[in-house]
């Protein structure tokens, strides 16, 4: 079924209340830490207190004598017996060489490379005993100078023997010579330097893992806070433990937020499985918040220089971008892909920029590994594009609206110079709608009113585009992905007509149980309450790739739609038999199967029953049962986009930035549940504003210690930091999936930061401030004003 027909179905576009919320708000969710097995034992990890050091000895003897301690594992116990944690992507460098890919053992063997790296694992009878015992493990470190700053990485001591200059890769995309040629013809060149600040994700539920083992069958079960349990199983079995998939079941039950930080296979996941197999007992670990700060993957951390060449009318001719990116100490699962294919391929933005060349130097540093964080690469891209575009306008005396409008892509499909082909969109319309919702017409009055109070007011635009719905396996394979990126869906109609859906995607707050039930209810006419969505258990769901990159509805929903096609087709055949008509004459609408042009009909429930009680059934040509699985590999990415407008008021005396209004107009294609989409936009914008104004993961340059290791110093956004958002949508249906949806999970975090910073700079320009880095905290804003005066 195609998008055009689908949008008119019942429940599509309806804000159905989240069916999962009843269990969450009554405290009946089932999270990993809630799971307690008979004979449960507990693990705690000794973590490196040094950012960079040789490990000269780990003395566990005193700790082994502590009450309740069962066993202590160190790097020595695993060396040579267990594979390292693999990276999911291979990046080929500009000179054709493969990226440097050092090993990452789950316990440090001869060296530690970031503060928080696991050095030893204590297993004890209780959590308290395990945590008390780790303090008695004596680790001898021979400290080395840490590498913290990417700009100094090349000359610092090497983290890994494989990468003597600490560079993992130098990678490029686009036509370098074409860009150079275009720059020679430019009437004006705008340049910018910017930092995309390091984020620490801080999902509400800290990471946790609990592994059980059956010596009788040789099977392990790992309960873990994962966004993609099948991927965990695949990497754990194929690369790390080297056991068949049949010997490991991975369950990601209710998970309280991921934001990319839970797509990784983590050392602790491997640790508990290893320990439970070695000790033949269930072993559980739950992160403390302070461990999360140190050991969850962090996000972003790009240092970028960009230059835009324009003709005299402000038409873009070419964009040249160079980024130094911080990968942290080791390659995380998606680590190498995020600052390359998920970043530079979006640098065309919404604009006809005929030539584009981007180069990325990716560095190892003595900091926590960096991986995807809500938006993963695309926020970094939109920040470069939308900051430089606004600056181009300012330098040429064009408004933020005008510089964008002059350069918008208006014809689709559109092939960018950096691999992407946008299928649909309507950027001018998004901009128009945003201008209206934001009441840009009366901005000058508001600016004057602020000035009368001694405050500065500014307005900032961001017209972002991103790529979601990962994603065509063939393309991502060419780009270095080591896995396919299709999705699976099984629709199992039960004998009485209720429906169980099995999806390879994973919900960790998004509301799949509601949205996917809406798809089934729309197509089969069953009540939403009679649809159950199952996800997160490799023993129950077909092989799938999990949830990240806003792919669940577009790709996972696509698979369910294909399975529903098969269900409908088979149901029609059964109905044709029961109604004594031909298959082609059966129409399926609102749960009824009708013989075209007659009043002969049968309900879907009766068909389901006939499929499972096939007394009167065409057994010679049709199998009994009504249970179909489909895999969907989309032909292209999806391209959500839109315009965000932020208005800020700044107190120049203190540097405090207040967001007065924030407007979002997004094109997400077809929307199944507007309430869920609003929720995604709210959360994404909140995180984007957090990045722009509040959040930054900071390591001490000399000591390599994480200075923002708790909520005392790492500023999480709070409701008080925000106004109510003004939200609008534009719909150009996506052409690469049956629903027509584009994905809404990350847009807010992608679109918001440049809108905020452009607004801050718009407000501060009259004070002589030309630049500011995120987060624009009161201190940073005051410093910028103070320095401009000096």
């Amino acid at each position, binding site marked *: 079924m195609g998008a055009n027909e689908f949008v008119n179905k019942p429940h599509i576009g309806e804000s159905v209340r989240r069916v999962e919320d009843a269990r969450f708000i009554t405290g009946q969710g089932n999270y990993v830490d809630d799971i307690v097995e008979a004979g449960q034992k507990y693990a705690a990890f000794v973590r490196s207190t040094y950012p960079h050091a040789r490990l000269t000895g780990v003395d566990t003897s005193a700790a082994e004598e502590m009450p309740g301690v069962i066993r202590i594992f160190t790097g020595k116990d695993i060396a040579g017996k267990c594979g390292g944690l693999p990276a999911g992507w291979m990046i080929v460098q500009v000179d054709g060489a493969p990226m440097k890919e050092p090993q990452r053992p789950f316990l440090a063997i001869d060296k530690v490379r970031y503060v928080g790296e696991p050095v030893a694992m204590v297993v004890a009878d209780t959590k308290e005993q395990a945590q008390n015992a780790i303090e008695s493990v004596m680790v001898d470190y021979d400290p080395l100078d840490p590498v913290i700053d990417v700009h100094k990485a090349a000359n610092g001591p090497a983290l890994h023997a494989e990468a003597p200059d600490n560079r993992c890769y130098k990678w490029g995309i686009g036509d370098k010579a074409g860009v150079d040629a275009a720059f020679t013809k430019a009437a004006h060149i705008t340049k910018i330097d910017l930092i995309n600040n390091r984020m620490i994700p801080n999902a509400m539920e800290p990471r946790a893992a609990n592994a059980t083992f059956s010596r009788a069958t040789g099977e392990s079960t790992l309960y873990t806070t994962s966004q993609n349990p099948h991927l965990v199983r695949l990497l754990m079995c194929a690369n790390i433990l080297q056991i068949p998939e049949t010997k490991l079941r991975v369950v990601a039950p209710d998970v309280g937020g991921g934001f990319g930080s839970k797509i990784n296979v983590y050392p602790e996941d491997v640790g508990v499985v290893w320990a439970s197999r070695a000790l033949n007992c269930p072993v559980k670990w739950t992160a*403390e918040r302070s461990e999360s700060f140190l050991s969850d993957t962090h996000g972003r951390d790009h240092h970028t220089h960009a230059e835009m060449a324009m003709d005299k009318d402000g038409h873009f001719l070419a964009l040249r971008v160079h980024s130094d990116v911080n990968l942290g100490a080791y390659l995380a699962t998606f680590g190498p892909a995020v600052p390359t294919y998920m970043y530079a391929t979006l640098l065309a933005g919404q604009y006809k920029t005929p030539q584009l060349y981007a180069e990325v130097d990716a560095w190892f540093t003595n900091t926590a590994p960096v991986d995807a964080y809500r938006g993963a690469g695309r926020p970094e891209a939109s920040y470069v594009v939308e900051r430089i575009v606004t600056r181009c306008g300012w330098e040429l005396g064009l408004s933020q609206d005008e510089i964008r409008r002059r350069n918008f892509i208006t014809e689709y499909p559109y092939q960018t110079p950096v691999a992407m082909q946008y299928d649909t969109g309507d950027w001018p319309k998004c901009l128009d709608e945003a201008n209206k919702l934001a009441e840009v017409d009366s901005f000058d009055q508001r600016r004057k009113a602020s000035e009368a109070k001694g405050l500065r007011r500014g307005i900032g635009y961001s017209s972002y585009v991103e790529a979601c719905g990962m994603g065509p396996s063939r393309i991502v394979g060419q780009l270095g992905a080591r896995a396919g990126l299709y999705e699976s869906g099984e629709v199992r109609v039960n004998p009485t007509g209720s429906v169980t859906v099995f999806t390879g995607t994973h919900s960790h707050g998004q509301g799949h149980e509601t949205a996917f039930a809406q798809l089934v209810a729309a197509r089969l006419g069953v009540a939403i309450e009679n649809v159950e969505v199952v996800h997160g258990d490799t023993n129950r769901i077909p092989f799938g790739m999990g949830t990240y990159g806003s792919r669940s509805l577009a790709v996972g929903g696509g698979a369910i739609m294909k399975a529903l096609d098969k269900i409908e087709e088979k149901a029609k055949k059964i109905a044709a038999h029961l109604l004594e008509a031909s298959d082609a004459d059966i129409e399926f609408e609102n749960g009824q199967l009708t013989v075209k042009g007659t009043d002969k009909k049968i309900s879907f429930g009766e068909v389901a029953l006939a499929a499972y009680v096939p007394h009167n059934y065409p057994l010679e040509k049709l199998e009994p049962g009504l249970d179909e699985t489909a895999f969907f590999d989309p032909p292209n990415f999806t391209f959500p986009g839109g315009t965000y407008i932020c208005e800020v008021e700044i107190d120049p005396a203190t540097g405090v930035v207040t967001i007065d209004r924030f407007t979002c107009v997004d094109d997400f294609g077809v929307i199944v549940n507007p309430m869920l989409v609003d929720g995604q936009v709210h959360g994404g914008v909140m995180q984007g504003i957090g990045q722009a104004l509040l959040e930054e993961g900071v390591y001490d340059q000399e000591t390599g210690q994480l200075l923002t290791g708790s909520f005392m110093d790492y500023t999480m956004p709070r409701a008080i930091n925000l106004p109510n958002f003004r939200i609008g949508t534009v719909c150009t249906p996506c052409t690469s999936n049956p629903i027509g949806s584009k994905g809404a999970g990350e847009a807010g975090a992608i679109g918001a930061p440049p809108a905020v910073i452009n607004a801050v700079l718009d407000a501060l320009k009259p004070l002589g401030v030309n630049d500011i880095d995120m987060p624009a905290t009161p201190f940073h804003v005051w410093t910028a004003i103070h320095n401009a005066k000096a």
Partner: protein
Amino acid sequence: MSTLYAFDYERPTTQADAVRLIQAGGRPLAGGQTLIASMKLHLASPSQLVDLGAIPELVGIRKQGDELVIGAMTCHRDVAESTVVREAIPALAALADLIGDKQIRSMGTIGGSVANNDPAADYPAALLALGATIHTASRKIAADDFFQGLFSTALEEGEIITAIHFPIPQRAAYVKFPQPASLFALIGVFVAQFRKSVRVAVTGGGSGVFRHTAMEAALSRDFSPAAIANVATDVESLSSDLHGSNAYRAHLVSVIAQRAVAGAQG
């Protein structure tokens, strides 16, 4: 770490019993909002906690002559909501309402906050600017002598605070500029005008609450924001961290103090 080391727990019902236990080495426990957190982080590991929460004479708010008296175990929320405090020293009620969040205000106590003397805590600014007296089980200590920089006070081993006595000013105001992450004071300024003097106390500067005597002198002559607009603050005495350099803190002291004076003027 979220696990506490094992400890003994006592909950005496009289001040005398509490003092006896504490003098024998027990650690006073008030709202636990600082102490329990530091025990979770294994920064403190007392072997005995003496919970002061069951001693009636340590709780309560009353006006006594020309003083406002607040028992050590009175929680921030009770101070914020008290009509007695709101009438006598409205700035003090407003200050209490700015501490942490609802949960913190319902647990944390004035005695615990004062004994702890966090360099970014709010109450110390009020005590110092109002010239309060700290009553312990054995003596009375003037605020000027009590706060001795960064988490240190005049309290001796085994000594507990029983109440705080505040002189009532003609007018006063507290303005707090929060550190964005913790929402403790990056800079907080308490200004109090008495018949014969003006006192200004600054918290959040880094090494503990202090009086701003230059501002006091200027305000004694002319109680207006303009009077202190050009009064300098010693930059070197303030600290620098992620959330603000000492220059920024010094600048904030000036801006926030002017706002406090404007606030006191009403």
